[in-house]
């Protein structure tokens, strides 16, 4: 199967459970995504920050501006808890979608539309970096409440930090 390197989507999966990281990684790879897994929100931000310095083919254009790109990466939340109030808080906080665990192969199809949305927005603003990336994160039981934040752009970044 020929894969266009440009079109390959990259998923950053965040989960503190090694077992769940293994599962989500396999689900994603089976669905032809490129995958990076980390065990915490802070590591996720670190990985995204580090990607600025890498000169890998999949990544980053040299003239990019770090802080602006982080805000526009779509975030999907997953949890084993089906609590509507929490789910709504995630969505209001900037998450594109909520997946109930255990995540299924069929759920993987729901990722592409969000990446494509993010991609066209990046292209509009002439930003190439991180344009094929999506974050999927477990909200776990350690989630902190999200602060009120006036700017919708900043909310997404704060959301990532809050995981």
């Amino acid at each position, binding site marked *: 199967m020929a894969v266009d390197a440009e079109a390959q989507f990259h998923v950053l999966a965040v989960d503190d459970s090694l*077992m769940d990281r*293994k599962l989500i990684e396999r689900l994603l790879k089976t669905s032809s995504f490129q995958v990076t897994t980390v065990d915490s929100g802070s590591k996720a931000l670190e990985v995204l920050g580090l990607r600025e310095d890498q000169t890998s083919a999949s990544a980053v254009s040299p003239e990019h501006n770090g802080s602006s790109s982080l805000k526009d990466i779509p975030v999907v939340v997953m949890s084993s808890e089906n609590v509507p109030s929490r789910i709504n808080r995630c969505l209001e906080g900037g998450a594109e979608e909520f997946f109930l665990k255990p995540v299924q192969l069929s759920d993987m199809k729901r990722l592409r539309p969000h990446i494509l949305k993010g991609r066209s927005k990046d292209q509009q603003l002439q930003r190439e970096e991180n344009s094929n990336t999506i974050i999927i994160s477990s909200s776990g039981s350690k989630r902190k409440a999200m602060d009120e934040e006036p700017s919708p752009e900043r909310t997404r970044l704060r959301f990532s930090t809050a995981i």
Partner: protein
Amino acid sequence: MVLHISSALTASALHPLLCFCFHNTYPEMENASGLHRQLASMKKNLFDQGYLDEQFYQLEELQDESSPNFVEEVVTLFFRDSSRSMANIDEALQQCPRDFHRLDKFLHRLKGSASSIGAAKMKNECTRLREFCSEENLDGCLRSFQKVKNDHTILRQKLENYLQLLRQVGPVDRASRSGS
């Protein structure tokens, strides 16, 4: 070797004879089909008795040539994770004064990992245990947790047997299996 086959022989009597000849001529194939049957029956048993649910099928679906030991790897991680959770729960139940909020966090973790591999009985008992926990019913918690521990022990034994058999069946059988 010469076989005299009398017309009075029934199919069921003939079968072991054929298996014997077959086994001597094609030992790997005979072993594979016998093991395969055993595997299928073990799996059916696990599902019928409610130890596993459809999520386990998802794990098997994710196993292929690029990840040939995926099921075993995930199951191993599950028992490592769940043993740790259960030790934490044990400790939390003995702690004085009891911190039910902290206990619930461990229960959430345990239930989550049970549901990830399709460990249905454990998952369901964890749900009941969490209810007792939210009511701060210590007695209920202790009784329910004992059930969780029993389910865990039984599941571990059954899955170990299943995986051992799966290993024996190996790549030869997987390659020759068609639409089973």
